[in-house]
């Protein structure tokens, strides 16, 4: 009997394992598809053009091509997941500046005869440069993308020759109309200015330093302070301003044209010159057809890549897909043809192609990635006037170097092994003592059947909660990037807890961030409870009219996904166009630049999070209030209590047992409220409003993928929260248990 039961259990376990194995390995085991697989991130016209090109290729060559559109956001991770397993594409289209990552993860092979030497003259030289890395050609260039100047033909009679000429139009354009708008906080857009002065963002290391970089920042600040360009302009804002004629010219890429109405009178020109300096030179990205290592071995795949770049397909891609194609023949022929006067798209393409002539290909090294954040912090700091360009750039360089610092040397694992060993020993001793305790065996025997009922839940929790937790903890003992992890023992923890050798409360240190996080949690939870309590009590009044309506309205903030709310609030806090400053303006308050000071940025975050968080407390309070017997409150009234006294001396103590767990929960949520901090202030100004969890995120995803360091942060956060819940639970728990009757 016992044996057969055990046998059945074993069978069940094997079946589960088989299912899991099938799910995990099925894609790897499946038959490789015949024909060629092509991945691309295109949509709309670009996708239609690609389909036509592919169809022609299939017809000519008699090969089946399977195309798959993968969203751009997920592109890299999908490639990383699929290609090493052998079920990725043979050919994939992507921007050339991701080449560093492709190489790192071994996702590409040289194009070889897909772009033979004899084909090279057929392409724009700058595009071939872009796909060439260390003397090897890695892709067939298809199309280029760079920014250019959109100008409103109603406001300007001709494209401005110089930036100064455009800026001088301020005032002449009419009230509330800006001469120029661009995403001034973005390093990508600033690069055009930087390049004009002969500077660079990246040269193998952080290169935005020195006189050229300083002068470019001074220029950017001059544009903003002189009122020639708005501060804090986002992509959406640019679109709105330009569509409504509130700005004469904007710097943007071909993607803006897709969002503009066909009726809007505008034209595109290359970026203007800077007086006495030279032409603004934007970054260029080139979409190329890359070959995966498997694809490079297949003749059909190489032929497809070559065909994608050919001049026939270039025509299709230019005319249907509106791409600025890399093939010179197309432009040569187009130059020969008389462009139709109303063919605006042709003119647009031509303008972007002209702009690309001066553009500088984006560097391809993965070491480029950590450049952006410090560069943008420096730009914002200068634009706000918080620092001189020199200081801001020096700080940015220091940050870059900090992020790129070499991992600490691998120590002997002995201390860690000893610690883990001691931990296991302690656990073993505890278990043995437990087992030896009288009655344990009997209890175990008695509860045996119960294990069957909880097994599935225990396994699920182990797989979904415990394993990731352990994996995270293990990761924290490693440093270096994901692809080059090195065991460093407790060095990450030591680094974090000693603020990497800098003063303990210096900028970006763990302790400063912890202080901010604690302040953030205390302020938020206090306001959540206060507002939730006030509204809960107000809504509990039976005489209140329209109570149900208020209740629904007040719960709404909770029902909206938090990132939607966070983005809405971020918009409302915009300095020039936000609702809050507009409201303050009616009260005669000067517009506040919310994200330029810690206090205001913190306030903005708190306002958003309070909006998100009070309904939970309100609902908890409303629920708890119904459990307070009415006659106890009446007894207090008869005993002589005023309303306030009854609330303070009776209602509040009786709410406490319910409120406390809610406060613990709310504290944990707020402590880790990533969405609001990341989306509203984004750590602005200068990372000061970051909390621990957003700081951990930045170490993992914005600072050269230092997952080990981020994991150590996460483990520390976990520890802090565990202690906090324990303490809060103990403080209130005892009383709560007593008071519950």
């Amino acid at each position, binding site marked *: 009997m016992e044996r057969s039961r055990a046998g059945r259990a074993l069978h069940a376990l094997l079946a589960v394992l088989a299912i899991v194995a099938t799910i995990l390995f099925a894609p790897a085991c499946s038959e490789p598809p015949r024909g060629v697989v092509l991945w691309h991130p295109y949509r709309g016209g670009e996708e239609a053009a690609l389909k036509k090109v592919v169809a022609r290729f299939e017809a000519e060559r008699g090969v089946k091509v399977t195309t798959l559109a993968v969203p751009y956001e997920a592109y890299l991770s999908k490639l990383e997941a699929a290609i090493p397993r052998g079920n990725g594409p043979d050919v994939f289209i992507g921007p050339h500046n991701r080449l560093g990552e492709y190489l790192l993860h071994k996702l590409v092979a040289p194009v070889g005869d897909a772009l033979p030497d004899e084909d090279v003259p057929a392409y724009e030289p700058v595009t071939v440069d872009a796909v060439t890395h260390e003397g090897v050609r890695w892709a067939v260039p298809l199309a280029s993308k760079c920014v250019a100047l959109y100008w409103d033909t109603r406001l300007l009679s001709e494209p401005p020759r110089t930036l100064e000429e455009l800026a001088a139009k301020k005032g002449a354009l009419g009230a509330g109309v800006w001469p120029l708008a661009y995403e001034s906080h973005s390093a990508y857009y600033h690069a055009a200015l930087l390049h004009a002065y002969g500077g660079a963002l990246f040269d193998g290391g952080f290169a935005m330093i020195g006189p050229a970089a300083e002068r470019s920042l001074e220029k950017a600040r001059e544009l903003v302070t002189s009122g020639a360009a708005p501060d804090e302009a986002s992509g959406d804002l640019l679109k709105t301003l330009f569509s409504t004629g509130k700005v004469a010219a904007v710097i943007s890429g071909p993607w803006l044209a897709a969002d503009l109405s066909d009726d809007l009178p505008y034209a595109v020109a290359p970026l203007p010159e800077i007086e006495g300096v030279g032409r603004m030179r934007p970054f260029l990205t080139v979409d190329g057809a890359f070959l995966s290592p498997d694809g490079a071995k297949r003749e059909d795949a190489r032929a497809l890549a070559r065909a994608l770049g050919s001049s026939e397909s270039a025509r299709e891609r230019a005319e249907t897909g509106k791409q600025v194609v890399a093939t010179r023949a197309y432009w040569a022929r187009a130059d020969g043809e008389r462009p139709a006067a109303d063919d605006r798209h042709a003119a647009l393409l031509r303008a972007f192609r002209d702009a690309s002539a001066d553009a500088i290909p984006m560097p391809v090294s993965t070491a480029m990635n950590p450049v952006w954040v410090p560069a943008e912090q420096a730009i914002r700091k200068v634009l706000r006037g918080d620092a001189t360009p020199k200081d801001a750039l020096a700080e940015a360089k220091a940050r870059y170097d900090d992020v790129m610092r070499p991992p600490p040397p691998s120590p002997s694992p002995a201390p860690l092994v000893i610690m883990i060993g001691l931990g296991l020993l302690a656990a073993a001793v505890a278990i043995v003592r437990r087992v030896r305790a009288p009655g344990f065996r009997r209890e175990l025997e008695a509860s045996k059947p119960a294990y069957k009922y909880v097994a599935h839940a225990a396994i699920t929790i182990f797989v979904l909660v415990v394993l990731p937790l352990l994996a995270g903890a293990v990761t924290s003992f490693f440093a270096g990037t994901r692809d080059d992890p090195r065991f460093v023992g407790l060095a990450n923890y030591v680094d974090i807890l000693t603020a990497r050798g800098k003063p303990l409360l210096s900028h970006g240190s763990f302790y400063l961030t912890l202080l901010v996080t604690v302040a953030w949690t205390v302020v938020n939870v206090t306001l959540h409870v206060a507002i939730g309590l006030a509204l809960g009590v107000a809504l509990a009044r039976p005489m209140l009219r329209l109570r149900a309506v208020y209740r629904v309205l007040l719960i709404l903030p909770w029902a909206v996904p938090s990132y939607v709310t966070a983005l809405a609030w971020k918009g409302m806090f915009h300095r020039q166009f936000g609702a809050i400053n507009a409201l303050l303006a009616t009260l005669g308050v000067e517009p506040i630049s919310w994200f330029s000071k810690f206090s205001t940025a913190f306030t903005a975050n708190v306002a958003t999070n309070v909006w998100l968080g009070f309904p939970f407390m309100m609902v908890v309070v409303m629920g708890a209030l119904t459990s307070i017997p009415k006659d106890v409150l009446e007894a207090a009234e008869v005993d002589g209590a005023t309303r306030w006294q009854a609330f303070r001396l*009776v209602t509040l103590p009786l709410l406490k047992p319910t409120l406390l767990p809610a406060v613990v929960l709310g504290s944990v949520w707020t402590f880790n409220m990533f969405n609001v901090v990341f989306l509203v202030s984004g750590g602005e100004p200068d990372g000061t409003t970051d909390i621990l969890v957003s700081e951990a995120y930045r170490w993992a995803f914005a600072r050269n993928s230092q997952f080990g360091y981020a994991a150590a942060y996460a483990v520390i956060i976990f520890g802090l929260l565990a202690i906090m819940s324990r303490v809060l639970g103990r403080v209130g728990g005892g009383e709560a248990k007593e008071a519950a009757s």
Partner: protein
Amino acid sequence: MSEAPHRHAGSSALRAAETPVPEPAERKLRCAARGIEKSFGATKILRGVDLEIPEGTFAVLVGPSGCGKSTLLRLVAGLEQADKGTITLAGRDVTNLPPRDRDVAMVFQSYALYPHLTVRENLAFGLKLRGTPAAEIESRIREASAMLGLEKLMDRLPKQLSGGQRQRVAMGRAIVRRPTIFLFDEPLSNLDAALRAEVRVEIRRLHDRLGATTLYVTHDQVEAMTLADSLWVLNGGLVEQKGPPLEIYERPRTKFVATFLGSPQMNLVAGKLSKEGGAFWAEGGGVRTRVDEERFGDALVEGREVTIGVRPHDLCLAKGDAPIVAELKVEIVEALGSEAFAHGWIRSSGPTFVARLDAADARSVRPGSAIPLAAAPSAIHLFDAKTDRALGD
């Protein structure tokens, strides 16, 4: 439930031994309500009620559920506002004052102890709110807890107490306040039967000891009969009858009061008055009895349609040549030891009928048999068939 009159006699004897209570009429009014009307939405709860409670009186409001007795109590406490009418406490018009300014103390049905406070804190709560000096609070608590036997429970929380103990704490909380009037809202209904009888006596004892003025609401007629100095029977938002409890028991002014008080209920049959040989008889539904001419006087008119009422306790097995009032077809006999109740009917189409029998007589009575019943003419109640009011009132 069945022992109401007996218990009453017992407890009034006890009362007399402790404090001689002067007649209510001679004393000052402690609480008065005049012309009270109260509606909740469209439902009229009180339709013009007057209430007078002289100092030191134990007044009991009794009536079926929904009669408005609790509402009236809450109006006196200030927990509800009257639509019409005035309330005065100790000569002060409190109609529009909140509860805290009325100087009343209330014991709730659920006791309504503060669950987060110890017994001591519960007792001190009201005094602290009124700014009573700490020493005074201490002495009052000591006194009250001694009176109620709470000394050993002072540091416990309400949930650590039994139902009876909580009840005593609730009373203690009222006692320490020394209010103008004590208000009790069905304070015994959450206790088991044995405890209820015990606490009932205790409440009355405390009332007498403190010389308190009390307004007590109950739907339990035993409590009403045993506790009250003056009883107010409410029905449908009106005072149906008021007075000393025995008087009401013996001379119910309406059919409602007659059936509401007394257990088992008074037997009622429809009948007619007739005159035979110079004496008035009431007859109907198999019942035929002489009536007390002195009591009903001019109300006795030959041929008048009446409801004949006789309490089970006033019936007995007809022996010797005692006139037979009715013949009961016995269905069930409830033997309680000292007495027994025979349930049955006089006529199969008529209402059920109950008679009290002596224990000895009951032994020989078997279900299915018919027994002759006798009753003194003075025990016969007559009500007008149309108005349901007692004849002669």
